[in-house]
């Protein structure tokens, strides 16, 4: 690394950083999209956005799900949690309006009290925002390890298009020095604008969205620009990457982004989970990364692009190292959680998600 920064749009840490450990979590319950269609559109099943989505149990929320994902990441990292200097958790469904999720997680994993703790918020890219911050903390030499996670228990208004896909799950990473990493993060690039495609005002239970405004000017523009700019600045092309992951609010959007950027269906296959777990919001891109790391080989290069409404995309250039092979079997894999599946009907879903008025 040179001491004078080159004139680049990329974020490149002064000291190389990477992923020391990673972990996923998906709750066990599944609501098929056809169940939502049965209740709200007379069972019309043409054009359903996904097959089914993951639903949290009555005793689950972003705190409990984060804990399991972080514990899985710690099993792979094999580090002393007391050496963690930051716990940053991205979500738009933190259980408290005021009181951090991150302090509860930090305490429970044994990272407190010598630690930074904060909750990130940026719609579906809050998790990757936490990753970029962790890259900065570790890459500057301020600390050795940081936790960056993104999980959600997303809610859609009953009958709304989002109710078919708004799901629960996510992933967590221990970020640390590159020499200890199972995958190095070579650089990141973020593309952010003020675009009102989706929002939720305070005290409102369900989000609002700009309907057709959400596609072209929001999701596609930000995802493709972030991916394209990262590759231009890195001097890479789609064929240099073995795998790619894009934010996945449904099945088609990430497929189309991949195709617009010149990636093949094979490249996005292991990380395309939205058809079977839905849109896990802050978890959506990064749980695609954990599923990809579960099958990747040393030397594989991975492009990941998140998208958060409001709006912005974070793109990452990642290279898998030899250390992945000795660590990945130390915790449950993403597909292990996907295979654990109990189908529920709309009535059970309504109870689980607190949609039944009790008073």
């Amino acid at each position, binding site marked *: 690394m040179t001491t004078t920064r080159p004139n680049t749009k990329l974020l490149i840490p002064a000291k190389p950083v990477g992923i020391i450990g990673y972990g996923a979590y998906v709750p*066990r319950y599944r609501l098929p999209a056809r169940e939502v269609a049965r209740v709200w559109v007379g069972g019309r099943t043409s054009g359903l956005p996904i097959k089914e989505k993951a639903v949290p*149990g*009555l*005793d*689950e*929320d972003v*705190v*409990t799900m984060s*804990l*399991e994902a972080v514990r899985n990441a710690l099993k792979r990292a094999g580090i002393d949690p007391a050496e963690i200097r930051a716990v940053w958790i991205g979500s738009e469904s933190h*259980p*408290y309006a005021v*009181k951090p999720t991150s302090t*509860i997680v930090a*305490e*429970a*994993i*044994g990272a407190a009290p010598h630690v930074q703790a904060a909750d990130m918020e940026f719609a579906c890219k809050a998790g990757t925002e936490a990753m970029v911050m962790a890259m900065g903390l570790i890459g500057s030499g301020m600390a050795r390890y940081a936790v960056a996670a993104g999980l959600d228990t997303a809610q859609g208004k009953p009958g709304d298009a989002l109710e078919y896909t708004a799901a629960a799950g996510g992933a967590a990473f221990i970020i640390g020095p590159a020499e200890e990493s199972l995958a190095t993060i070579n650089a990141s690039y973020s593309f952010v604008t003020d675009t009102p495609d989706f929002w939720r005002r305070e005290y409102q239970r369900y989000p609002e969205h700009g309907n057709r405004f959400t596609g072209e000017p929001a999701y596609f523009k930000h995802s493709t620009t972030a991916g394209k700019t990262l590759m231009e600045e890195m001097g890479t092309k789609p064929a240099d990457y073995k795998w790619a992951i894009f934010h996945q609010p449904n099945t088609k959007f990430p497929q189309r982004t991949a195709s617009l950027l010149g990636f093949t269906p094979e490249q996005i296959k292991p990380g395309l989970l939205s058809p079977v777990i839905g849109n896990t919001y802050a978890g959506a891109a990064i749980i695609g990364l954990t599923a990809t790391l579960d099958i990747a080989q040393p030397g594989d290069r991975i492009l990941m692009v998140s998208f958060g409404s409001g709006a912005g995309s974070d793109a990452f250039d990642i290279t898998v190292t030899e250390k992945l092979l000795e660590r990945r079997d130390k915790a*449950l*894999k993403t*597909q*292990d*959680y*996907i*295979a*654990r599946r*109990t189908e529920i009907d709309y009535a059970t879903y309504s109870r689980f998600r607190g949609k039944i008025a009790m008073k």
Partner: protein
Amino acid sequence: MEIPRHWRLNQQRYGLVGEVCPHCDTKIFPPRDICPACGQDAKTTFAFSGRGAVFSFTTIYEAPTGFDETAPYTVALVKLEEGPLVTAQLTDLGEAHPEIGMPVEMVTRRLRSDGDERGMLIYGYKFRPVLKPA
């Protein structure tokens, strides 16, 4: 409001942290600072693996105040791998029926809220059927 009591119990309840006796190696949960086996001081912190087996169980249909949101649920006596018996809810049973000897593992879940929807949320350990690689 029982905030101080909940706060003191955090470590023990989030992570199944107990004690180990430095004299006879007995693992102790919940922590009580005195070894139940040899009667000597035992204050060394010990994090349990969280693995165990159902020793006995019962299903609660009429839940006490604060737990009614999740009723019906199953409460079990779980024999931890390291020895102690703990009482906790079973969760994520799905279609599985609890049975004696069922291997279970600890997860941290939301237990209840302290009072109504304005109260603090209380998290703690429960056990679920061991989740095996697919």
